[in-house]
């Protein structure tokens, strides 16, 4: 637990150091970015550490970490010297209550999640081994970019900034990688809690200020802001509630033959829940021989036109933290919230609207340009998809600010694209070393013809958030004094939904015909190499695309797609309404058309309800993100929407989570008498339904005694495999060298030596390597070569493989024996064992002349 305290001190120090910077950056926010200071400090610190390492200005050691810290301290000191430090102190004194509350939120969240992690710290299953392997590889690498732990000779090709941060803190505090893994989970949970609290607090103060023209924040905002972390981190989708009903046998009926049947659960279409529950019934969800809480992340089920099903990932924050995978989408969360906070700052300051084609040069030297670029670039390095989503938010903020002085037009859209392009280039330059070594697995956009989200599943997923948001939108629509009608909004959303639908079908027609065109090209009379190759590629693409959809005929594909969508309109109708409402509300900000308005300074009157508009933007962005994968998805190794939905829906949860929490506080504060009680009841019912999942999940992890509490994620391994653990620990402190160990499939126990020791293996999980590198070129024949290494009896063959991969350590343990029947005596005649016990032997391969 000493490590937990050290981590707290380190992150607090980072926050304190960077606060003067945040004070300037978030000048329009009520808490001056105090709630973001910890993640912002960590972000800047890790960026400097990583950047200087990549440019060989610092080493991957504590010295390098302190280079970053010294620069950060220097910049902060410079900011203090330049600004009036007395005013900062005075501000702190005046807002001390708020700062203390914000700090309490962090500490409570941190302690709570340290305890949760300590109750179940095992780094086993899912992608946890991969994440620990990254952390240990970064810790072991003498410089950055770190070596790939599972593909010797290469650097990590993954958006791994989050792991750099965790490893940096681990190195700074002298924490073991396996402990750092769990502390990282707890720290990120607390960072998100604090950032969410701060963001919602600022929005609520902004809203109060808009309404009451009062500057002094009250306890409504302070208490109400607690819903920020609750909505983002705790509340879960309704699958947990359904699990409870399912376990109790609700809606199940016994047939004559005694078997259970339910049309409700069949209609719901959630796997496992469509199977009868085990008797005796209970209110407590359980799954014999399985894990009931897993299903909440697999609510959606895509079905192709022929009825084949595809599993879809639909994680939400509580699930991710509970699962405790330290995955990029989790690691990026605090920084996503910083970006949203900064977008709100830009929205309030109005500075973005000054961007013009004409004064482009003056714009690129502005602080807000580079801060935006930095934040977007960091999101790309943290979780690449996020950069696109939040560049979208940035573009929306710009558009809405510009729409105050002019109408939406093609030229305005052009300006928006240009600005985003400039920001993108700046972000690319700031994070150049990452982008140069990164191979994306995304292979373009594919039309989602047969796959879409059924309305009921969409509501199970987001109902907890949609209900308060829709209630608030309707309330705002009814109370808005402007002269507008809902039909305008519906027209816009209709065009948007219909447009996407049509484009996806046109794109689909093109892809469906690829097969035919490819074959035509291949059979061309003037056949040369390139024509034949192109024909072959097109044919393969066409076959692949049709294969993903279950190999129907083209006419069947389109007909079935249209019929199914029209038969299950829940999702797109929900989104159509949300987009229509938000659009019509957002349109209120648009000024009367004035050709001369290009030269106006578009700052809203302070009495205008600015915060509402920003929240509309968030809702609008979330709805757009939900709408997009209804018609398109990104082509990756999986071939269908699995990853697209995962990445999109997770961000929707964050964005709508903030909007929903805001909506709840605003409605409870605004509504009176019956409508207030009605809304309160509705909200409480949905909130309780959303709380069922975390309550049962946490209950399942309650330990019987405190004796098993540990943060060491490999404690279980040390106890279950003491011999191998000892051997790998030896390897961990040994000089850096390539390890040969057994190769096995993803999510398995293979690659454990490189994972724990941080030494690079010849090959780890081949499937994941293939994903990260967008193919198997780099992997080559490593897997069969390793098999030959352990099976061969001829020393020259072994020696050839050892030379080829420059192997320094050959590990012979349980998996090598089980998979390859490895015999240590084959190595013993030619290599010296440098570590040996009953369970494992490590042979050292001396360097050759």
């Amino acid at each position, binding site marked *: 637990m000493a490590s937990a305290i050290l981590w707290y001190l380190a992150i607090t120090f980072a926050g304190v150091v960077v606060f003067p910077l945040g004070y300037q950056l978030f000048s329009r926010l009520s808490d001056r970015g105090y709630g973001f200071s910890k993640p912002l400090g960590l972000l800047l610190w890790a960026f400097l550490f990583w950047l200087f390492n990549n440019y060989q200005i610092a080493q991957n050691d504590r010295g390098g970490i302190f*280079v970053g810290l*010294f620069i950060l301290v220097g910049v902060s000191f410079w900011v203090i010297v330049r600004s009036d430090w007395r005013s900062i102190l005075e501000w702190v004194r005046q807002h001390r209550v708020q700062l203390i509350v914000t700090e309490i939120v962090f500490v409570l969240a941190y302690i709570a999640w340290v305890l949760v992690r300590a109750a179940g710290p095992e780094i086993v299953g899912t992608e946890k081994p991969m994440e620990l392997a990254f952390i240990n590889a970064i810790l072991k690498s003498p410089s950055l970019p770190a070596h790939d732990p599972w593909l010797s000779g290469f650097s990590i090709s993954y958006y791994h900034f989050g792991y750099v941060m965790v490893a940096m803190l681990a190195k700074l505090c002298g924490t073991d990688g396996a402990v750092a893994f769990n502390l990282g989970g707890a720290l990120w949970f607390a960072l998100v809690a604090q950032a969410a609290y701060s963001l919602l607090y600022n929005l609520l103060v902004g809203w109060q200020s808009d309404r009451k023209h009062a500057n002094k924040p009250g306890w409504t905002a302070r208490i109400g802001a607690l819903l920020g972390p609750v909505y983002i981190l705790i509340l879960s989708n309704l699958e947990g509630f359904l699990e409870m009903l399912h376990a109790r046998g609700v809606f199940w009926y016994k047939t004559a033959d005694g078997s259970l049947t339910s049309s409700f659960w069949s209609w719901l279409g959630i796997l496992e829940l469509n199977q009868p529950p085990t008797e005796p019934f209970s209110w407590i969800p359980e799954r014999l021989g399985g894990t009931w809480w897993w299903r909440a992340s697999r609510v959606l089920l895509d079905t192709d036109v022929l009825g084949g099903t595809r599993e879809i990932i639909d994680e939400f924050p509580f699930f991710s933290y509970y699962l405790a995978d330290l995955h990029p989408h989790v690691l990026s969360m605090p920084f996503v919230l910083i970006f949203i906070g900064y977008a709100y700052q830009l929205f309030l300051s109005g500075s973005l609207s000054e961007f013009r084609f004409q004064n482009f040069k003056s714009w690129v030297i502005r602080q807000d340009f580079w801060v935006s670029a930095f934040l977007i670039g960091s999101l790309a390095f943290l979780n690449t998809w996020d950069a696109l989503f939040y560049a979208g938010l940035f573009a929306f903020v710009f558009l809405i600010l510009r729409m105050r002085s002019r109408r939406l037009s093609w030229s305005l859209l052009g300006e928006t694209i240009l600005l985003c392009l400039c920001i993108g280039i700046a972000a690319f330059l700031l994070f150049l070393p990452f982008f140069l070594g990164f191979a994306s697995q995304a292979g373009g956009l594919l039309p989602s013809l047969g796959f879409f989200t059924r309305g009921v599943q969409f509501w199970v997923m987001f109902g907890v958030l949609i209900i308060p948001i829709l209630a608030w939108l309707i309330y705002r629509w009814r109370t808005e004094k402007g002269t507008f009608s809902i039909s305008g909004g519906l027209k816009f959303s209709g065009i948007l939904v219909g447009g996407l639908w049509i484009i996806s079908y046109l794109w689909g027609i093109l892809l469906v015909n690829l097969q035919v065109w490819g074959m035509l090209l291949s059979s061309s009379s003037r056949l040369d190499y390139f024509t034949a190759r192109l024909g072959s590629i097109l044919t393969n693409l066409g076959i692949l695309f049709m294969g993903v959809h279950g190999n129907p005929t083209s006419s069947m594909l389109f007909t079935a797609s249209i019929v199914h969508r029209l038969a299950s309109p829940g999702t797109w109708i929900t989104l159509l309404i949300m987009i229509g409402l938000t659009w019509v509300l957002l349109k209120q900000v648009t000024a009367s058309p004035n050709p001369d308005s290009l030269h106006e300074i578009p700052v809203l009157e302070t009495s205008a309800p600015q915060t509402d508009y920003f929240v509309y933007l968030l809702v609008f962005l979330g709805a757009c993100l939900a709408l997009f994968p209804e018609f398109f998805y990104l082509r990756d190794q999986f071939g269908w929407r699995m990853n697209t939905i995962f990445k999109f829906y997770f961000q929707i949860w964050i964005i709508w989570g903030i909007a929903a929490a805001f909506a709840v506080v605003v409605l409870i504060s605004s509504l009176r008498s019956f409508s207030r009680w009605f809304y309160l009841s509705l909200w409480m019912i949905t909130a309780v339904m959303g709380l069922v999942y975390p309550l049962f999940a946490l209950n399942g992890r309650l330990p019987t005694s405190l004796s098993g509490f540990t943060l060491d994620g490999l404690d279980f391994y040390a106890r279950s495999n003491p011999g191998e653990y000892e051997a790998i620990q030896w390897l961990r402190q040994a000089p850096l060298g390539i390890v040969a160990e057994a190769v096995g499939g993803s999510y398995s126990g293979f690659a454990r030596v490189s994972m724990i020791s941080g030494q690079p293996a010849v090959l780890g999980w081949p499937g994941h390597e293939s994903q990260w590198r967008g193919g198997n070129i780099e992997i080559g024949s490593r897997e069969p070569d390793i098999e030959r290494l352990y099976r061969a009896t001829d020393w020259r063959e072994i020696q050839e493989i050892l030379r080829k991969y420059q192997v320094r350590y050959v590990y012979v343990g349980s998996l090598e024996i089980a998979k390859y029947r490895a015999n240590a005596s084959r190595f013993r005649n030619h290599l*010296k064992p440098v570590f040996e016990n009953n369970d494992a032997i490590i042979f050292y391969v001396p360097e050759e002349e």
Partner: protein
Amino acid sequence: MTGAFGVIPRVQKFSVDRYIWLLACLIALVIRLIYLERLPLTDSEATLALQALRLARGEQVILSYEPAYLFLTTLINFLFSATNFSARIFPALAGTLLVFVPWFFKDLIGKRPAIILSFFLALDPGLIAISREANGTIFAITFLFLGIGFLRHGCIRLSGASLTLALLGGPGVWGGLLGIGIAWGISRLLAAAGVERLDQPLLIPNFKQFEWKKFLFGAGMVLIILGTGFLLVPRGINGLAGGLPGYFEGWSKAGEPVTRVLYAFLTSQLLMLVLMILGWIRGVRNPDVRSAFLTNWFLAALILVLLQPGRHMPDGGWAIIPLLTLAAIELDRWLSAPKSVVSSGLAQASLVLVLLIFVLLNFLYLVNIARIDLSTFLRFSQEEGGVFSANVDVTLRLVAVLGGLLLLVFTIFLVGWAWSMKAAGYGVVWGSLTLLVLLTLSNSWSSTGLIKNPQTILWHSSPYPAEIDLLEKTVRDFSEWNMTLPDFGLVLVNLNAPSVEWALRDMRGVKSSLALSPDARPAMFLSAENSEMTMASYYRGQDFTIRSEPAWSFLSFDEFIRWIFYREGSQRLQSAVLWVRLDLFPGESKNLSGILP
């Protein structure tokens, strides 16, 4: 005069004072440079020297947190060649510069104490040993105080440059700064409590009017030029920042034992400690803010070294500076005797000196020649017959010691009664101090390492590589005898011994390996004792002591006394075995069929 680095005080007439400063500098330079290359580099020295050598060769190196030392040594390695001398020259020069530090503080401590302090700094055994070691600690010490000195004299750019050099000196600077900070804090607290009154700021400049740009210019120049290895190794900046965590890492790992630090201070700083105590006694009657600050500083620095588990001996240098300053101030007072007591005091001092030497020589005879067990001696164990009955000579020597002491007391009483107690007092102090000065000078010479048992020097930061020269010569001989052998080479097998690597730095085919293959037959390999015995049939082995240091934890009292005066005592040794393939010996068959697999 205004130079590029700020306002440098005008050089006035070359007075006698300046010749004295130069003399101190000359002494410091000579004693730091004399036979600088003779002792082989220890492991800690060799670790840094090897980094500098590899940098000069353009190899990739993970840098230690002492960039000032590393890059200056790299430069000299690049220009000339890598020798023990080149590895130690810059610390020696930096240690010499320390002599000038008192000049910047003479307004605070007085002109004459400043001159005395310069000689102390030139001849202090601890500082000599630290200056003759290949590491950056002395850079940190010298340039920190020079930087503060420049700051006090308004040379802002030079101050920035010096303080940056200090930071580039290594982690030790943070311990030094912490000690000063604690002392300053205590002084402020005492001042606030009304116990002490700080009449003038001792170290802290006026930040409001501080010329930051000039300061940052100086600092930036040094950082860019030296901190980045003359722009060739930008990672050097890592070393500047790494000093702070490097210092704190010392709080979480083991280092030298506390007793070693205490022994070092008790033996090499005896004169200074006596003077400091005399100063304290004087301070009881006449409190002095300046001495109080220096005392706080000394105690803070010493306690920090003692408390830090990962203590290094050179870190004790931070406590030596305030100790020497206190001693210089006190010695100046004792040298400022009234004219009336000079002649009688000198006479008394001569007597005291003669008697003390007489007592000491007899005492040493007991300890060293007769080799009596001092613990038995001190207990006067009559049951076993005691020391008196053991040997007539011993008895006589014991009587001489006790008689000499009695005579000493008697002469003091006589002089005090016949002339004055003041003269007697001065005489006792002068006589005793003279003896201590002689002992200190002896220590100073010893600390150069140019003595019979250099492994007994307390201030060295790692064990002495005793037989490294012999090892090197043996390897070289085999190399020469087998010039034509294509696979000639030496493998260091699982042996972390940078001193060996350094000694063999220009040998062909030297490499390290964690282990040897069972079928490998390198020409030579060096491994830890008793390992690799399986290959003994193809090789002939010879062990060499690669590390030797006094066994401090096992040292008895009489051994300690013997160590003080004769530098003798039990040693803790670590050996490595050099295995040479049979065919490499002169006259042996070159037929390898029975050897090579």
